[in-house]
C-alpha cells in the first residue's frame, strides 16, 4: 500500500469513502403514513373501522407520527418532506393496512348463550422502491382480540370499533399495533442489492368456491385479499423482492403522493422475473370428532414469464380445525375458510425456501412436487 507523508493512501481513501458509506447506509426513505392496500373502490368495504377511527383529524396518523418521532429508525433516515424522483432516492415507507376482520359466533355453553367476537387487524410495514416498483422490505404486524358478550348479540359494530381502537392504540400497558409497527421500523435495515423480482401475477377462484363468499365480499375483492396475503408472506419468508399484486390505492396513489413529481403517479409496476399463479380450487368443511375441519385446495404455478418456462406446477391441499363444533348456534364459517386458504398459501411459501419431503407427501397431489420445489429453492435463499 502506498504511503504519502506517513499517512497511508488507504486511510485517505477510507476517510473519503467511509462518510459516504455512512451516507449510503443512512438511506433516506420518504414517509407515507397510514396507507390502504387494495383497490380504491374497496377501501370502505375493507377498512370501515380504521376509517372511522382515523376520520377527521387523523388520530391514527398522528399517533403514528408521534411514536416515530420518539423512536426514529436506526438504519435509515426518515423524511417527512416530499421526495424527487430524479434524485434516485425513491424509497417510501408506509404502514399499510392489509386486513380488518370481525368474526362473530354464538355459542351455547353450560353457563348460557354467549356471543364470541374476534377482531383482527393486520398491517404491513412496507419499504417500497417506487421507481423500481418492488417491495424492498415487508414486515407484517398483526394482532387480534377476542371478547365475549352475554346472550345472542346481533349488533356488534360499536363493540368491534372499541376493540379495534384497543388493538391500534394499546391497552393496559400492552403496546398497540402502531407502537409495534414503529418498533419494526426502528429495526428495519434496507438492502442495497436489488435482486430478482417475483410477483403473484394472478389469482383465480374456481366456480365452486364462489357460492361460499359472504355478501360483502365479491370475487375480485377475495382475489385481492389472497394476492396481498401471498405477496406479503413471500416478501417476509422468502426474503426476495416482491412486486405488489396490484397497484391499488396505496401503491398507485398514496405512496407516489410523497414525491413532488407528477410523473410518480404514472409509474407502472414492472414485469416480474418470476411469476406465481394461484388458483383456489375448493374450500371444504366437515366435522371430525367434535371439531370442524376447514380445508383448502389450490393449484400453484411458478413460471418465468419471458420464456414461458414453468418450474413448479401442482395441486396442493391443507386444512385447519376449529374446536368444539357442537357448541355453535351461529358459526362464522367464512373466517375459517379464509384462514384455511391462507394457511395453505403460507405453507407453500415456506416450502419455497425450505422444502420438506414429508409436507409434500402429505399435501401435494403431484408425485414429484418435492423435486420441483427443491430444484428451485436456491432462488429463495440468499
Amino acid at each position: 500500500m502506498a504511503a504519502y507523508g506517513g499517512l497511508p493512501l488507504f486511510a485517505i481513501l477510507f476517510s473519503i469513502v467511509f462518510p459516504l458509506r455512512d451516507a449510503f447506509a443512512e438511506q433516506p426513505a420518504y414517509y407515507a403514513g397510514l396507507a390502504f392496500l387494495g383497490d380504491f373502490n374497496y377501501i370502505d368495504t375493507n377498512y370501515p373501522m380504521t376509517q372511522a377511527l382515523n376520520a377527521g383529524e387523523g388520530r391514527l396518523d398522528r399517533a403514528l407520527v408521534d411514536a416515530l418521532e420518539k423512536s426514529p429508525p436506526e438504519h435509515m433516515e426518515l423524511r417527512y418532506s416530499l421526495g424527487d424522483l430524479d434524485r434516485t432516492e425513491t424509497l417510501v415507507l408506509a404502514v399499510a393496512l392489509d386486513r380488518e376482520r370481525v368474526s362473530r359466533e354464538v355459542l351455547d355453553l353450560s353457563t348460557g348463550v354467549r356471543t364470541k367476537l374476534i377482531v383482527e387487524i393486520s398491517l404491513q410495514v412496507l419499504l417500497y422502491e417506487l421507481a423500481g416498483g418492488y417491495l424492498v422490505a415487508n414486515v407484517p404486524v398483526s394482532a387480534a382480540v377476542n371478547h365475549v358478550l352475554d346472550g345472542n348479540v346481533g349488533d356488534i359494530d360499536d363493540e368491534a370499533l372499541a376493540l379495534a381502537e384497543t388493538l391500534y392504540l394499546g391497552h393496559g400497558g400492552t403496546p398497540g399495533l402502531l407502537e409495534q409497527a414503529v418498533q419494526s421500523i426502528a429495526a428495519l435495515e434496507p438492502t442495497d442489492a436489488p435482486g430478482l423480482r417475483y410477483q403473484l401475477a394472478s389469482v383465480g377462484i374456481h366456480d365452486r368456491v364462489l357460492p361460499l363468499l359472504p355478501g360483502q365480499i365479491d370475487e375480485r375483492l377475495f382475489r385481492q385479499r389472497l394476492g396481498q396475503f401471498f405477496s406479503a408472506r413471500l416478501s417476509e419468508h422468502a426474503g426476495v423482492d416482491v412486486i405488489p399484486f396490484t397497484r391499488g390505492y396505496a401503491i398507485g396513489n398514496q405512496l407516489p403522493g410523497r414525491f413532488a413529481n407528477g410523473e410518480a403517479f404514472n409509474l407502472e409496476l414492472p414485469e416480474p422475473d418470476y411469476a406465481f399463479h394461484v388458483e383456489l380450487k375448493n374450500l371444504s368443511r366437515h366435522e371430525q370428532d367434535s371439531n370442524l375441519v376447514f380445508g383448502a385446495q389450490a393449484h400453484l404455478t411458478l413460471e418465468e414469464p419471458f420464456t414461458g418456462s414453468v418450474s413448479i406446477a401442482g395441486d396442493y391441499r391443507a386444512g385447519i380445525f376449529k374446536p368444539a363444533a357442537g357448541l355453535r348456534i351461529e358459526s362464522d364459517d367464512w373466517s375459517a375458510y379464509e384462514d384455511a386458504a391462507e394457511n395453505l398459501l403460507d405453507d407453500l411459501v415456506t416450502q419455497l425456501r425450505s422444502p420438506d419431503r414429508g409436507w409434500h407427501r402429505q399435501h401435494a397431489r403431484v408425485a414429484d412436487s418435492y423435486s420441483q420445489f427443491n430444484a428451485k429453492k436456491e432462488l429463495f435463499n440468499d
Partner: protein
Amino acid sequence: MISWPLKAYEFIKQPTRSTRWRRGRFGFLVVLLAAIVVWPGASMAIEQKGVADIDAGRSADRKERNAAVEEALRNAVETWVAEKQPSQFRNYQQVKPTIDADIESYVLSHQVISTDHDRKTQRYRVVLRATLNEPKLLDALLAASAGAPSGDGSYLTFLFVAREQIGTVTQSEKEATQVKSRTEAISREREENSAAQTRSQEQSVTMRQSERTMRDRALWDVATSNEIDAAMGEVFTDADYLVIDAGIVGGASDYQLNTDSFIEDYRTGSDIRAETKRAAYQGLASLRGTDDEIQYLAIGTLDIEAAELDDKTGNHRVVVAVTGEVWSVLQRGATVAEVGPVTMIGEGPSELVARNNALKAAARRAAGDLVAKLSGRNIR
C-alpha cells in the same frame, strides 16, 4: 371474559434479510466511490429482458457463459427496439454492428434470471434482465442518419393543438305520422215482406310515431398548450433540430401560418381544414431563400378525454390521443413523417396533474416517433 384459544399471531417480526454491506477490499471501495459519483439518474435507465442460446459442449466454461451473456444483452437491445421503439428499427439496422461490437457500453447493468445447460443438445441458455442506457442508445440510433450535418440541424417549427371535451349536446328527433283509415260497411238485408238496410261507417285514426336518437355532439375547447410545446420542443431540440416558435414564424409569414385558424378548425371539426394547411404551407414557402427559411413544419392534434376516477388507485385518469405529421417545405409540402393516432394515459391526484402527465407523455411520444421516422429518411 372467557379466553378462547386463538391461532398464534406474531406481534413483532424481525426482518429476515440483513443489510448486505459488502466488506470490500480497497479496489472495491474505489469502484464504489466511482459508482456513487457517476451513478445515473433513475429516470434515465430502462429495463429489457433478453435471451441467448449458444453451443456450449458438455459443460459451459466461463468463456462460453460470458459469450452467452453478451449475446443475451444484444438480444435485449434488439427486443427493446422492436417492441418499444419500432419507428427506430430502420436506424437500428444501420448501427447494429456498432452497438453489438460494444454492447456492454450500452448496458448499465444486468441481472441473470436463469441459466440452463442441456447436456444432450449441448446448448447453454441464459435469460437476463438488462438495464439499458436509453439516452446513449437513442443517440446512436439518431446518429444513423447518413450524411447528417454535424452540429446545426434543420430549421423546424411545429404547431400542435389540443382539444378538451367540455360538454355535450343531446339530440333526438321525433316524427309523428297520422294515418287515417275509414272503413265503411254496408250491409243489406232483405227479407220477404221487409227490407232493412243498414249502413255503418267506421272511421279510425291511428298515430304512428317514430323517434330517432342522434349521438350526443361533443363540445370542445381548443388551445395550444405549454406542456405540449415544452415536451415536443425538448425532443426536437435534443435531435438537433433548430426549433423556431410558431408564433415567430407566423409573423414572418405574414400570418399565413396562423395559430388561430388551426384552433378554430379543430374546435368545429375533426381535422385541420385544407385551406388552413394550404395557407400554412404557402406562408412557409414564401420564406424560402430568406433568412427566415424553415425547412420543416410539424403539425398535429391532441384529443383530451374527460377525466375519470380510476377505481383501482383513486387517481384521476386522463386519456390523450395524438396524431401528427411533418411536411418538407422545400419539397412542395410533401409529408415526410406521420404518426398516430397514439393513445397515452396520465394519472394524478388531481385532474390537472393527470392531464399534464397525459399531455407530456403524448407529446413526447409523438415527437419521438416523428424524429425517428425523419432520421430513418436521413433527415436531421
